[in-house]
Every structure is written in structure tokens, then in C-alpha cells.
């Protein structure tokens, strides 16, 4: 064969040899190995006894995974997060820091991703934290972490997750149930929220949606809730994020703390506990009415109006929802006196046929009259 061919043959051979070595290196040099090496060094410094020192010296790079019982998850977080169960690393930098023990949730049974999110089978930082395309469950930011508790624990009040419990409460109190359904309970105006946490996993989306529904969901008739304080919106977001498909058998094997339905149905018999006015902040902005109502009665009315989330469905002066009639000039409507309003508050459907307004059954007679007077003052 001519020299030209020999050169081609040789060059290709050398190139292919180099390519093989590149492939070899890329397979050998893994990110997690570097983390493990660093951890072993730290561990070595913390060794106190000869036996411990020996154990550290014997440490080799290894694959570590936790098969989460009852699911197909294979959590490999501990390949880098090596100090999670070692109290000596409480002050160590991440990823080596100790993880507080969660009673009844041993890591070797539950793994990590069930609570934290992320990509269980990945072994590189980016991929494992799930902040990559095509992975739908990235690491949950710390402030929303209680959401995942709700994936298995359906009870209304969860001692270890106060933000979640608050969110569940607020869902009932702020009138969300009027339009949204969770596990069959609630109105059908808005989308079913039973698994909303599986569809919309980004907390920022929920916050934006609460504040301005049309911005995230064009065409939505949901009224804005930017009048709610930030911490309430966060609690509600935590609750929304908790509404997701539970890791199957893991949930089945854990006794559920309470009944399936966490939300009170809008019937006269259920009681949404009335809250004392002093604890409520009045945030609904309503224009002052020309018809004088005594000032402390007016403020009481406004408190009730906000408490009962009337703004969710009714608008006054451009503020509020479009589900129910506009109340800006409610006081001028003929045929509606105090009695009419009180009856309407008690059983809306009986007074206005076809109405979907939930009854305000748990208010005292006095409170109903106060609200009715407020209605009449709106001109």
C-alpha cells in the first residue's frame, strides 16, 4: 500500500487510540468521587480511635443508594451527602453537613427525594438537584419544604409542619373552596386542585398566580389575592405544593393521621371557626360609602367582609372577583332591604335561585345584620 494510505491508517489509529483514552478518562473522573475524597479527608481528621482511623483508611470510592420502600426511587444523594447521619459533621460545609434526625422517618427507609425533591438516580450535582431540563421535580426550596409532608399526611393539623397546617386552614378561610375542588369537595368553577402540586411544582408560579391569576393563566376569572399578606400566600403555596400524588406504598404503609378530606364542605352544619376581630388584619380595600354607618360598625363589617373572603367572588369599586354580582351599588338596588340581605346570607340559593354562593351560616345574627347594613350602604 502506498505511503499515503499508511499515513491515513496510522493517523486514524492514533486518533482512535486517543479517543479511547479520552472516553476512559471521562468515565473514570466523576464528580462524586471528588466529593467522596474530600469527605474521607474530613473524616480522617475527625477520627479519634485507632479503629476509626483504620476504617477511614479502608474507605474506597463507592456507590451508595437507598431503595425507598414501596416505590421505584433509588436515592443516591448520600454518595456526596456523606455526613447526613454523622453528628460530627454538624458544622461542616455542604454537602457534608449532618441532617437533623426526623423521628419515625429513618433515612435508610425513606431516602431523601421523597421530602426534598430532586432526581434520585443522578450522580452529578446539577442533575441530582433536578435543576435540569426534562426533570419535573427539582429540589424544593427550604421555605416550602413542608409541602412534601402533605403528600403522605393528609390530616388537617400536622405538628411538624405548621406552615402546611396554616395553609390548609387558610384554604378554607379565604374561600378558595367556593371555586376549587380538592378530592371531590368544593366548587367546580376553577380547576380541580387535588394534584395541582404535581402539575405546578414551582412555588414562584403559585405566588404569582395568587397575586395576579390572569398573568399566569390568561382568561382566568379568579380574583386577585394580593391583599393577603405574604406569609399567608406562602402558607397557601406550601399547601398547593403538597397536593400531589403520594409515593404509593410508602403512603399506604404509613398510618394517615386524619381523614381524607382536609377541607370543610360549604354546608350549614360545618363550622369554620370564627376568629376574633382583633387577630385579623383588614386588607380589603373598599371605598367609603356615602350613607353614614357608625364607624365602629363599618369597621366590623369590613372585617367580616374580609374574613369571609367575599372579595373572592364579589367586586366593589373594581376590587374583587367577577364570580358573583358586582356590589359597588348594592345599596341602590330596589327590593332589597336588611331582611332580604340577612336571609340571603343565610341561604343564598333559596333567595336567589341558581346561586352558587356558599351560605354564611356561622355568623351571629348581629354580624349578619352588620354585613347587611354594609351592603345597604354601598352606593
Amino acid at each position, binding site marked *: 500500500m*502506498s505511503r499515503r494510505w499508511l499515513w491515513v491508517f496510522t493517523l486514524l*489509529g*492514533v*486518533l482512535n487510540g486517543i479517543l*479511547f483514552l479520552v472516553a*476512559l478518562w471521562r468515565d473514570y473522573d466523576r464528580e462524586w468521587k471528588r466529593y467522596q475524597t474530600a469527605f474521607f479527608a474530613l473524616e480522617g481528621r475527625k477520627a479519634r480511635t485507632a479503629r476509626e482511623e483504620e476504617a477511614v483508611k479502608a474507605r474506597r470510592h463507592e456507590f451508595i443508594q437507598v*431503595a425507598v420502600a414501596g416505590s421505584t426511587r*433509588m436515592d443516591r444523594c448520600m454518595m456526596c451527602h456523606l455526613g447526613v447521619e454523622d453528628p*460530627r459533621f454538624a458544622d461542616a460545609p455542604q454537602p457534608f453537613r449532618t441532617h437533623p434526625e426526623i423521628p419515625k422517618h429513618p433515612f435508610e427507609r425513606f431516602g431523601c427525594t421523597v421530602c426534598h425533591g430532586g432526581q434520585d438516580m443522578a450522580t452529578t450535582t446539577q442533575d441530582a438537584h433536578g435543576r435540569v431540563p426534562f426533570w419535573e421535580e427539582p429540589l424544593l426550596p427550604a421555605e416550602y419544604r413542608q409541602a412534601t409532608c402533605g403528600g403522605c399526611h393528609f390530616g388537617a393539623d400536622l405538628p411538624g409542619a405548621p406552615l402546611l397546617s396554616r395553609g390548609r386552614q387558610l384554604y378554607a378561610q379565604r374561600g378558595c373552596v367556593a371555586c376549587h375542588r380538592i378530592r371531590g369537595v368544593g366548587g367546580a368553577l376553577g380547576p380541580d386542585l387535588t394534584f395541582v402540586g404535581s402539575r405546578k411544582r414551582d412555588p414562584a408560579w403559585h405566588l404569582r398566580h395568587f397575586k395576579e391569576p390572569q398573568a399566569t393563566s390568561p382568561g382566568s376569572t379568579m380574583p386577585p389575592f394580593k391583599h393577603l399578606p405574604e406569609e399567608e400566600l406562602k402558607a397557601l403555596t406550601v399547601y398547593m405544593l403538597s397536593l400531589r400524588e403520594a409515593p404509593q406504598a410508602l403512603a399506604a404503609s404509613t398510618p394517615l393521621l386524619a381523614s381524607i378530606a382536609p377541607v370543610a364542605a360549604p354546608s350549614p352544619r360545618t363550622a369554620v371557626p370564627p376568629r376574633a376581630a382583633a387577630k385579623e388584619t383588614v386588607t380589603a380595600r373598599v371605598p367609603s360609602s356615602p350613607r353614614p354607618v357608625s364607624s365602629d360598625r363599618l369597621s366590623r363589617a369590613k372585617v367580616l367582609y374580609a374574613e369571609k373572603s367575599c372579595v373572592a367572588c364579589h367586586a366593589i369599586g373594581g376590587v374583587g372577583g367577577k364570580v358573583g354580582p358586582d356590589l359597588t351599588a348594592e345599596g341602590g338596588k330596589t327590593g332589597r332591604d336588611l331582611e332580604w340581605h340577612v336571609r340571603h346570607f343565610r341561604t343564598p340559593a333559596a333567595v336567589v335561585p341558581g346561586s352558587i354562593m356558599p351560605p354564611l351560616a356561622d355568623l351571629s345574627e348581629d354580624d349578619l345584620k352588620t354585613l347587611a347594613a354594609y351592603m345597604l350602604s354601598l352606593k
Partner: protein
Amino acid sequence: MQRAGSPPESTGPDQGRVSRRALLGTGWCGFLLSIVGPAVANIRFLFPNVVYEGPTLLKVGRPEDYAPGTIMVLEEQRLFIIRDPEGFRALSAICTHLRCTTGPFVQPNAQWKESHSRCPCHGSVFAKDGRVLQGPAPRPLDFYRVSLAPDGRLIVDTAAIVAKGDVLKV
């Protein structure tokens, strides 16, 4: 051998040019590397880094869970945890004959003067230091390394076989 139609090679000495032998030699080396290398890599590929058979490092509770002077059997993990005045030992419950799970330890009786475990499959009998008292088992039961995790729990490493003298003092 020349390609039909190609010009004849220069007949003079190849001064300053790389010799055919060097070229071919390097070429073949590269070629072989790019064949043998991947072949070896493929074999490495076949050795799994993770298996779904369950972990080899087993957490078996706390020292307080084991009364002194007892032999507890952990069936799912196929282990005996032996706690005696010296400390903790972990004895494998996998019969060395054909890998059945050998039975729990029973008190001495007429036949055997020490506590023993009987394997239901082919009748091997083991003493609590792993010795084979009877039966087709070819060698004693293995002891695994027991250590104390930093959070205070006992860890048995079923990938680390140790001598029967190895004990965790607690």
C-alpha cells in the same frame, strides 16, 4: 504491492522520512488500542456498580435493643446478632453449603452440648462461633464486621468478613 495505476515509489533511500515500519507499527498499535481498549471497557461495563439486591451496610438498631447474653435472629437480613460479655458480633445465617437460611439458635440438648443452629435444607448444624458441628456444610459461618455508627446505631457490613475474634466492645 502497489495500487494499480499509482506512481512507483521512489527507489532512493527514505532519508528524513518516517519509515514504513514505524508508520505501520504505530498504526497497528493505535488500531489495537482502539479495539482492545473498548473491548476491555465493555467488560468493565458488564460489572455492575449498583445492584438492586439491597444494601450491604445494614442498620440493626441500637445496642440497647439487644439484651446481653442473647443471640437475636434477624430473618430479613439473614443475620444473627450475638451479644455476650465481650461485646457484639454479627454472624451470618446463610448456610455455607448451598446458601439456605439456617435456623435459629436453640439450647443445648441431648445431641449437642452447646447452643446450635440447624439448617432446614440438608441438616447442617452450626455452633455459635460458626463452627460446623455436623452436616454437608464445607466451612464455618462467616462473621461480619460490626461497628457503631456516629448516631449511635449498630451497623453490620455484610461485605466485610472478619475473624470470629473480632468483636465490637460497647
